């Protein structure tokens, strides 16, 4: 039985296609919304119905709540899947869906608000005894308070906006002088970008690894984890390569991490799929960083090791069903790696929009979550990611060998991609040994444009 008759996907590209696939499998009708720039995109053709919601710029189309809601009502949509990015973590959108009696496939607006504020998320996690990065207790009300707190914590420190994200509203300070210089401007930036000037201080973790835990919770009090993902290969604070399991964790540490993630999720009464992000110190200590209250870009590595369809689980939970499996029945097998193929220069990371004149990809032993086909235009309006390449292997080295073989068979013509960088990383000794931190890309001597 279908959980919903019709689901609208408030997103584009590969993730829209990914969600449509699961809906089709479950016999659910799909509605795509698209901007003028995406009129001929594969996801528009894949959906049962498709409605244009405005001009190319996201803020005139994919981000316009009224238009999306209007389309949902006109098409008799039961539920909206937000994908990632765009409206997926916007509590106003969730409230609007609730008001219009349309099921939002994700957590409630209230929980989204709590986790959207770094300060309140930290507070909640401390209540649940989940470690957070050592830092100030709550909001810093003045420069004097900041300086005093900094003396106790010790430099270097990160000055962070509570509402910040994507690297905005974050400033590294090494000394009293630097903190004095940074304080007012960070508060102002936070106010103008996020309408919330609250800032706090956190200890800088110098050689961090970024490891996150996939969780799913239903409306009946059941919470499970679906293991971790290692996401330390990043450029400009954005991930390039993810894998599961993490090569950094032993079984004891893994169990400790997974247990802490579930404990935190239970504390806040979270529902649907989400990701608890943690930062690991060199010595193996870990701290809660933030929660992503949505499906992640890199969810396929979790699906490949667990055999689960996370979008199907999201739909079931949103429809009020119980989680299909209990924790003991969720098993992982082998190792999965995902590479993100970006339309950008492999050295400077500068984006490269254009037309995909030629696209050759292998079809065996690989999962390809692509938003484009040969002939597709990659426009300048959205994220430069054109697809995800996911492989599985019996172990980590087998997965790396599989990835190398797949990357060697991929050809993209018409625009610049980071394919060569992905190949280079698969051969890199630090990556191959699993010995890498979020500084890995910088250590290759690559510098992104600012």
């Amino acid at each position, binding site marked *: 039985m279908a959980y919903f008759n019709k689901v609208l996907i408030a997103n584009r590209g590969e993730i829209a296609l990914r969600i449509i696939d699961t809906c089709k499998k479950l016999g659910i009708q799909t509605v795509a919304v698209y901007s003028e720039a995406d009129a001929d995109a594969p996801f528009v053709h894949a959906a049962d119905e498709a409605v244009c919601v405005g*001009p*190319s*710029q996201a803020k005139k189309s994919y981000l316009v709540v009224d238009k999306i809601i209007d389309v949902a009502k006109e098409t008799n949509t039961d539920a909206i899947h937000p994908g990632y990015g765009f409206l997926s973590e916007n509590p106003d959108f969730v409230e609007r869906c609730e008001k219009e009696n349309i099921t939002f496939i994700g957590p409630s607006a209230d929980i989204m608000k709590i986790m959207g504020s770094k300060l309140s998320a930290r507070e909640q996690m401390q209540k649940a005894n989940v470690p957070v990065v050592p830092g100030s207790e709550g909001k810093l009300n003045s420069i004097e308070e900041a300086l005093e707190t900094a003396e106790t914590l010790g430099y270097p420190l990160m000055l962070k906006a509570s509402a910040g994200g994507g690297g905005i509203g974050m400033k590294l300070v090494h000394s009293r002088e630097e903190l004095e210089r940074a304080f007012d401007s960070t508060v102002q930036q936070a106010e*103008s*970008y996020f309408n919330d000037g609250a800032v706090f201080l956190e200890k800088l973790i110098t050689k961090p690894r970024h490891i996150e835990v996939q969780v799913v919770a239903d409306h009946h009090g059941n919470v499970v984890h679906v293991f971790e993902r290692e996401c330390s290969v990043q450029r400009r604070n954005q991930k390039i390569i993810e894998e599961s399991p993490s090569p950094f964790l032993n079984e004891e540490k893994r169990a400790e991490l997974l247990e802490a993630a579930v404990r935190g999720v239970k504390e806040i009464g979270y529902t649907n799929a989400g990701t608890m992000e943690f930062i690991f110190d060199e010595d193996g200590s870990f701290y809660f960083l933030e929660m992503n209250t949505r499906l992640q870009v890199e969810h396929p590595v979790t699906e490949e090791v667990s055999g689960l369809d996370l979008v199907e689980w999201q739909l079931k939970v949103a429809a009020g069903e119980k989680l299909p499996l209990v924790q003991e029945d969720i098993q992982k097998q082998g190792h999965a790696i995902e590479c993100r193929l970006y*339309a*950008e220069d492999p050295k400077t990371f*500068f*984006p490269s*929009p254009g037309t995909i004149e030629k696209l050759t990809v292998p079809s065996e032993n690989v999962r390809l979550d692509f938003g484009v086909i040969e002939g597709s235009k990659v*426009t*300048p*309006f*959205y*994220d*430069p990611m054109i697809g995800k390449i996911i492989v599985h292997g019996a172990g980590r080295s087998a997965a790396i060998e599989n990835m190398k073989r797949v990357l060697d068979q991929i050809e993209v013509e018409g625009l610049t991609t980071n394919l060569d960088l992905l190949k280079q990383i698969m051969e890199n000794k630090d990556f191959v040994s699993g010995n890498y931190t979020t500084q890995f890309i910088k250590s290759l001597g690559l510098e992104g*444009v600012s």
Partner: protein
Amino acid sequence: MADKVLSPLPGIFYRKPSPDKDVYVNEGDSVKEGDILGLVEVMKNFYEVKAEKDGVIEKFHVENESEIEAGQEIATIS
């Protein structure tokens, strides 16, 4: 002699550093080589469009927040 300022990339052209700030320069303003005239947003990245010579901004040919093509004329400096 008037020089054309061209966009090196396709994207969205902005005349302001952020929505609540003033424009970088107005028509009629004097600019120096290297001054920022606007931003082009391409795939969530911002590229600064700079004056390539000293002069006066004669005219902007593209409105704030409008779509532009690579090679399109953004402004004229005389």
